[in-house]
């Protein structure tokens, strides 16, 4: 099992509620991944801006780390786990 840094922009459908942001689906490389499980969420600070990191498992049982940058409202796939 290896992890690869990706840092590529993605489109995400997410849910905002009670000040919380939760990604539901994302499109990467033309494929839509449904988020089956949200493992955890953490925030790193970059100056005044916050970066929200989400550790998720997709419906294909792959692991992804998604990143939401509050300064430009951009989502990225930060890391993926390559099984094997």
């Amino acid at each position, binding site marked *: *099992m*290896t*992890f690869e840094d990706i840092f590529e922009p993605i489109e995400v459908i997410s849910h905002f509620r009670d000040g919380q942001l939760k990604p539901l689906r994302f499109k990467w490389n033309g494929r839509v991944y449904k988020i089956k*499980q949200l*493992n*955890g969420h*953490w*925030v*790193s600070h*970059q*100056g*005044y*801006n916050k970066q929200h*990191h989400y*550790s998720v*498992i997709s419906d294909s049982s792959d*692991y992804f780390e998604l990143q939401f940058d509050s300064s430009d409202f951009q989502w990225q796939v930060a890391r993926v*786990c390559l*099984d094997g």
Partner: protein
Amino acid sequence: MNGRFKTIFHIDADAFFASVEQGFNPLLRGKPVIVGGKPDQRGVVHTASYEARARGICTGMPLVKAKALCPQAVFLKGDYEHYRAVSQIFQEIYLRFTPKVEFTSLDDAYLDLTGALHLYPSAEWVGRAIMREVEKRTGVSISVGIGSGKAIARIASSLKKPRGLVRVPPGKERAFLADLPVDVLPGIGRMAKERLTDLHIFKVGELAALPRLIPEQLFGKNGKTLWELANGIDPREVKRRTIPRQISRETSFEEDTADMRLIKGTLQYLTERIAKKLREQELTCRTLAVKIRYSDFRRHARSQSLDAPSNDAGQLFRQAEAIFDALRLRRVRIRHVGVAASHIEPARYQQFLFKESLRQESLNSAVDEIRRRFGFMALLPADTLELRCKYRMDRHGYILHNPALTR
């Protein structure tokens, strides 16, 4: 509650970095995880999960050796920002139980519950509540030690890892320590242990039974403290703010190098990070040290005192550069460099006689403000841009060879 005794907690995360990775990624749970770098990179194991430890992996082991011992392990380079974010969650949880918390590193802390314990059913209840809350929110398991002093609590927390909770009842400190090996006491390293072994002193109880003069004669002024700790006496307070003894930053190069621009650029970058840390905490240092390790693994280190305490990056780098020039006498490639600031003290603000110092201080304040708003990489000394050819960068800084170690 017995009014004479304090109630101190020591909380330590179990295999912290590896636990964080496993906590946030269910695919890693139950697998041997090694944080430190990829196995084909040079470097050492920074943290190994308990599954990896069971296969003989330990902290400090070269990654290549770890791969040979445990080829099925998952090797991760680590993410300091992630660990810091998780540490913030720990802090939030601890501060809900008591305001007297001393954070000694990302993953361990002392809590003084002496004044707050009447709010809860018992000390063990608090310990279990903290363990549950931390595990629920981060997936990281912690071990808790409870005692009447910091040393007792720290020793207790290390006895039943992982997920251990050990409480030493007040007044039972001597009995608790008596059968433990002497090197559990803070301050007993390899040399001190050897000297005690020569005297046939193997257990803390044997050290405690000596007349106090003997440890004093053996270890000087530290001997008195050791004797007191062996007898369960530890009057140290839990301090909300502690002044670190040393702040250091170091890194290995991807490959051994003799490129002086790269080496000095790296030294300047590391010094810049130290200066930022000092100013953030309103501290200054009086001494700066530089260490280098050559490709043949020989190492050299030298320190020098500054003319006056400082937290100015320019001044610190000039000193570091002078030390490096005096230190580097061999024509051999370098694999590792490090900078350390010591004799750290609170910054004292006073009226300056000369305008130059005032200008420098204003400039530093402006730099700090810009970095607070836009991140560390918003402003960098031009010489450190040399590192862009070698390292990837994000807005937190250059991603150095061993980022988990170098912050």
